[in-house]
């Protein structure tokens, strides 16, 4: 019996695993929290696009030997500004602007890594995430963004709720909707920046969408969604990371598959009520 128990605790003997599971669990909770706004605002494409844009910055900073957070952060902000400028000119829609800028950034990142990087290894690490590369700075960074996000969401709860539910009336009622949206985009960019090295570019948007969708099926309350979704994100990240050790599979893929399994179970268990609740989330 003690042999089985010791076996179950095996992965925790490794520092890289402990660092990875801490970052993944906090990242899961953080993505779950911000995912509520992403899902209710129909912004899942922006989450997807931002992660692709940041990939370009991550690749460029790796090739130029610049600090990852500085390089990818500046790149992500620049992508956001360019998307905003193109969309404001109204020649093409915001969705097309996101598609063009973020996929171009992604392609540029790939080309840079092909040409100058340790191509295959680096690309796989950024695309699919890597627990091996997690350092103490990652734990500090993801914890700082998580604490900041919780403070902002709790302190500005009503403004966030109003601007998400009814932005036009919120604006008329004195809520600075543009400022709230910029703040949300900033938090989303920071979240992607600090979690991408563990979760990876391709799967991060799933971690933003799945926990919030599961939470939506479980409750009709916005306030309750804001704690249920982070709990689901954290549990799926912890469980997925843990299982990946024994299954010898990609940590990020196992995290997403764990979240997907929770989605399927809740979808089946809540029946018509749950399906009705997520029927308004057309992008899910």
């Amino acid at each position, binding site marked *: 019996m003690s042999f089985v128990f010791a076996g179950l605790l095996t992965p925790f003997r490794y520092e890289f695993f402990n660092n990875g599971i801490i970052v993944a669990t906090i990242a899961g909770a953080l993505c779950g929290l911000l995912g509520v706004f992403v899902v209710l605002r129909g912004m899942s494409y922006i989450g997807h696009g931002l992660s692709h844009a940041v990939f370009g910055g991550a690749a460029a900073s790796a090739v130029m030997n610049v600090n990852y957070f500085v390089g990818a952060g500046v790149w992500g902000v620049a992508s956001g500004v360019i998307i905003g400028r193109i969309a404001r000119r109204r020649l093409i829609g915001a969705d097309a602007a996101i598609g063009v800028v973020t996929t171009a950034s992604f392609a540029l990142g790939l080309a840079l890594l092909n040409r100058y990087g340790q191509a295959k290894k680096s690309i796989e690490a950024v695309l699919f995430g890597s627990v091996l590369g997690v350092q103490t700075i990652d734990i500090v960074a993801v914890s700082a963004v998580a604490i900041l996000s919780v403070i902002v969401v709790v302190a500005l709860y*009503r*403004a966030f709720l109003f601007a998400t539910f*009814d932005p036009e009336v919120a604006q008329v*009622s004195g809520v600075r909707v543009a400022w709230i949206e910029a703040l949300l985009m900033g938090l989303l960019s920071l979240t992607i920046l600090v979690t991408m090295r563990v979760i990876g570019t391709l799967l991060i948007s799933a971690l933003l969408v799945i926990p919030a969708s599961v939470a939506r099926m479980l409750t009709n309350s*916005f306030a*309750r*969604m804001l704690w249920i979704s982070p709990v689901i994100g954290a549990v799926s990240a912890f469980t997925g990371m843990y299982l990946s050790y024994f299954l010898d599979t990609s940590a990020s893929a196992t995290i997403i598959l764990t979240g997907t399994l929770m989605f399927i179970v809740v979808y089946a268990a809540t029946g018509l009520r749950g399906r009705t609740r997520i029927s308004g989330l057309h992008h899910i």
Partner: protein
Amino acid sequence: MDEVLVECAHMSCAYNSTLAIKNIDLTVRKGDFIGIVGPSGSGKTTLLKAILGSISPVEGHVTKKPQLRMGYVPQVETVDWNFPVTVLEVVVMTRSSTGHLPRVTKDERTDALLVLERLGLGGLENRHIRELSGGQQQRVFVARALFHQPELLVLDEPTSGVDVRTRHEVLHLLADLHDEGVSIILSTHDLNGLAAHLPRLVCLNSEIIADGSPVEVLTPEVLEQTFGAPMGVLIHGGMPVVVDGVGADIAKRMSRLD
């Protein structure tokens, strides 16, 4: 003369350099109950948004009474009924600038319950908004607008897409609020069901065609100029009843067959 709440002077508003409304001169005074009528795309919502301050005029200006408290009720079709909020949460939303934390304070709850009770929504505060009838849903948004005690209530198509019973409910509610001293301006294309019952109508088709009482402005000439189609007007019980020109023509032909 009653106090001026909002004054639009030679005001024009545009989207992407295309003028939506032009040369609007309109004064809203304390105690007014005004209906803006016009066809789809005539600029009714644009005019309301300019009054609310959510869009800026490209020409002319809007002057408001300092510190004017306005409540806005948008079209219910624009509301996401699946959004996870209860009736109480919707009502207290308008205190976003003063109340920050998720918790609804005791005072806010008391105030919100009073407004809900006044609008016949007592006991529904913990219901999800989708679980309400059409009339109740409309009243929840009126309750939200009333929560911060507006001097001017602005409603965009309050009877659009609702059944006759709900329309009556909304009309009676607005009449009661007006009697209690709330000034009201609303947009509608419901000529007989709503507009004809209001004390003052403004006919709009990019510019103001007519401004006055229903009897003064609901005339075949004004309506044809406003809606771009022939319309007849009958007087029933002292109130104008607008008859669709095509409908009147068909009715005339049917009567000949009899």
